[in-house]
């Protein structure tokens, strides 16, 4: 059964690798491998305190684990290349199905990169004696099984939780709370490094917590082996086997629930909503806005995304109150706006092929885009303003008022513009809302889009920030407050101009967008079709492209550039860098050749996927 599922997933992946997807794969693989190499270097690093290396390494492993746990929840619902619903009729016991799904979860770039990262355990154990070194070889795959099993379980729990309105909001709180807390724990580590706490290791409570988390058990096990503490080593090792097994058994029960129950959608309530009624009467833009607001409150995924943004801003800024610092509170509204923009940047993708309604009604594209912008503003702006005013009143000083309001104004407008622009120009096809099935969080592959928005949205606040900074430097309150006006102006301009670009594009390329969304190319055979992301590579070439872009990073970074850097720095670390194990005349040429090989593979992969796209036009 595992064999068949594996082949099935490989076929699905082979049929899905296209030029655009390969591009996303490049970026993801590059970012992931950078982190993996960082983890390996941390594990082998020569740090002042003996406990510190273990602390920081355990912290890095915790980050990998939480990345696996939370990443899929708000970046498109995880791996849905094969869905349990598709196999619901097959007479197989749920446990076998769960273990089968777990096994195929290891196929992909993410697990491969994580395996590279977890090989840091071997590096960590290198100085801890033979027993620890041998155990580390076993712990590397166990660590991967642990995070993947917990990730699948987490996603199943969240998927079932987001099946009614209260639990969608509550799960958004938990999700955002853990996320924000993780972000803040890095701030704490940074502060510890800044204040020289690192000589003695991290604060005791924190370092204990890192080792109590399952992600740290492997470190505990290796340290115990180094000390000769066999019972502790055996206990943590057994835990690393038992926990994934327990997770998968629980997951198998949730799989059955997923395929045999349905989310409870809520229809209109009996309470009258004056705002919606007024919008309904306010012309086409108002009608679209009212429709959008209704969707935001009835679509469980949108509800979850919206509350995720709000909770994230709140928890992120409330957290430092624990150490008596209220200085982040004024920025709660700003953070909510950026987060809300990042999670709303695929408005048309979320609607699926419902775009046809707009396309058959000529001249409605302007109202459709503007209405969606208005709805987003109504959803986000009042909350953000309230949080900013309250937060600044409590935690801000005189100088924060113009800053907070200026950034808020610029970002609210910039966000409203960018969500419209991104939704149309960088549409990510997702499943039809009616076909999301057992995973209400399945939003398509929006990971790259969310990341890009988190970077680009703050850029829209740069002019306002520049003026505010100038005001601070010159000590002129007039200039500081002028920043608010600048923020309002750039925000308004972004909303207007980017929105206009979006509806013009929608008017010109509507059918292509619809074709891209439905995933089929049958709507408009003609020019433009080839530009869509669904140009398929022949299976063999797709496999080659996939192999090249997954593997090229290994010669390029860990075997090429990193050894070159180490040679330049005169370090005598060797780890698994081939070139560093050679005698001197060969070290540099071998490392350089590796780097060249990596670049060559990258280039070849790009050319292979591109030339096909060119041929299809």
């Amino acid at each position, binding site marked *: *059964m595992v064999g*068949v*599922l594996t*082949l*099935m997933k490989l*076929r*699905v992946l082979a*049929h*899905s690798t296209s030029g655009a997807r390969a591009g996303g794969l490049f970026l993801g693989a590059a970012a992931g491998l950078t982190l993996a190499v960082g983890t390996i270097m941390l594990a082998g690093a020569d740090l002042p305190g003996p406990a510190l290396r273990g602390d920081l390494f355990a912290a890095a492993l915790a980050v990998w684990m939480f990345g696996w746990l939370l990443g899929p929840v708000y970046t498109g619902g995880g791996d849905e*290349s*094969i*869905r349990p*619903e*598709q*196999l*619901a*009729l*097959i*007479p*197989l*016991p749920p446990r076998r199905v769960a273990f089968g799904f777990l096994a195929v979860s290891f196929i992909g770039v993410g697990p491969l990169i994580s395996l590279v990262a977890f090989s840091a355990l071997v590096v960590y154990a290198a100085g801890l004696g033979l027993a620890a070194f041998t155990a580390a070889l076993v712990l590397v795959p166990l660590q991967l099984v642990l995070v993947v099993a917990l990730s699948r379980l987490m996603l199943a729990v969240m998927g079932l939780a987001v099946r009614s309105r209260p639990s969608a909001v509550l799960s958004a709180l938990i999700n955002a709370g853990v996320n924000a807390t993780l972000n803040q724990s890095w701030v704490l580590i940074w502060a510890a490094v800044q204040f020289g706490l690192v000589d003695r290791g991290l604060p005791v409570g924190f370092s204990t917590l890192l080792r109590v988390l399952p992600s740290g058990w492997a470190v505990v096990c290796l340290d115990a082996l180094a000390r000769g503490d066999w019972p502790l080593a055996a206990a943590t090792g057994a835990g690393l086997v038992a926990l994934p097994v327990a997770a998968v058994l629980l997951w198998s029960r949730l799989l059955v629930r997923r*395929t*045999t*129950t*349905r989310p*409870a959608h*809520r229809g209109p309530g009996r309470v009258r909503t004056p705002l919606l009624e007024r919008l309904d009467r306010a012309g086409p833009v108002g009608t679209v806005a009212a429709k959008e607001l209704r969707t935001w409150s009835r679509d469980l995924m949108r509800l979850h995304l919206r509350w995720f943004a709000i909770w994230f801003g709140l928890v992120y800024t409330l957290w430092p109150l624990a150490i008596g610092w209220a200085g982040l509170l004024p920025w709660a509204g700003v953070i909510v706006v950026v987060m809300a923009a990042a999670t709303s940047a695929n408005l048309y993708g979320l609607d699926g092929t419902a775009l046809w309604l707009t396309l058959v009604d000529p001249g409605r594209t302007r109202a459709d885009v503007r209405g969606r912008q208005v709805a987003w503003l109504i959803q986000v702006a009042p909350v953000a303003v309230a949080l900013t005013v309250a937060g600044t009143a409590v935690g801000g000083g005189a100088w924060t008022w113009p800053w907070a309001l200026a950034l808020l104004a610029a970002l609210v407008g910039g966000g409203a513009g960018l969500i419209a622009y991104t939704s149309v120009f960088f549409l990510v096809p997702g499943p039809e809302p*009616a*076909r999301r*099935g057992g995973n209400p969080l399945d939003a398509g592959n929006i990971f790259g889009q969310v990341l890009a928005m988190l970077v680009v949205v703050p850029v829209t606040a740069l002019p306002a920030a520049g003026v505010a900074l100038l005001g601070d430097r010159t000590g002129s309150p007039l200039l500081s407050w002028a920043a608010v006006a600048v923020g309002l102006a750039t925000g308004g301009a972004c909303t207007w101009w980017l929105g206009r670009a979006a509806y013009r594009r929608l008017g010109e390329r509507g059918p292509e967008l619809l074709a891209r969304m439905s*995933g*089929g*190319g*049958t709507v408009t055979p003609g020019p433009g079709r080839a530009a869509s992301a669904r140009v*398929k590579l022949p299976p063999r070439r797709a496999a080659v492209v996939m192999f090249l872009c997954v593997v090229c990073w290994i010669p390029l970074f860990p075997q090429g550039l990193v050894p070159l850097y180490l040679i330049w720095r005169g370090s005598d670390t060797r780890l698994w860098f081939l070139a560093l194990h050679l005698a001197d005349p060969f070290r540099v040429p071998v490392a350089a050749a590796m780097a060249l090989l990596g670049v060559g593979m990258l280039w070849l992969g790009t050319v292979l996927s591109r030339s096909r796209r060119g041929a299809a036009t």
Partner: protein
Amino acid sequence: MRTPALEITNLGKRFGDRTAVDDLSLRVPAGAFFGLVGPNGAGKTTTLSMAVGLLRPDSGTVRVEGLDVWADPIPARTRLGVLPDGLALPERLTGRELLVFLGRLRGLAPPVAAARADELLDILDLAAAERTLVIDYSTGMRKKIGLAAALLHGPSLLVLDEPFEAVDPVSALTIRAMLRQFTAAGGTVVLSSHVMATVEQLCDHVAVVHRGRIAAAGPLDQVRAGSTLEQRFVGLVGADLDLTRSPSWLAS
């Protein structure tokens, strides 16, 4: 008397405050060609989903050839072939790949799965679309590949939700002939349809579902009671037919 192919007892399902299926009981004799008809929203699809193990009922039991679908799903599923409503399929596989993989997951040996897939694709006129991914299939082709998936493992009870919807006339004739041969050889078919003529031609038993309950059930002639099925249907669901009504602004 043989064990009924499908026996539904006191089945109930609520979605929020709406009752979709209300204490519904139904018995499908082995070897029957059973038609399930009813107005939109009557609970046909909900009933069939619960009957095949795809939607957990709030109350009641379902037995397939005496085997409880919910207490012990696996033996029941081996006997069932299902074409569900709005069927979820792995979209990025070709029709042949899909059938071969599903067959192998059901425990068929690779050559057997491949041979059956080829035969089904050929019979259902899908062989020409061999290199097309399921995502690019038309609605009718999706129905046909779903039907092929339901037949693949040689079930003894077929439960088909609207099998003829969007299927072209030639394929429809092929499917009818195939289903007739299947029942002639002792298999049982339960299908839902809105086309009364199809049901009258094909089925020997019918049930009319209305508001989550059975309004009438039994052998076709008994339910028709001397009239046509369409007339009986309209009478049973109590529709207030007014054929003179039409939107006032339309073509006036």
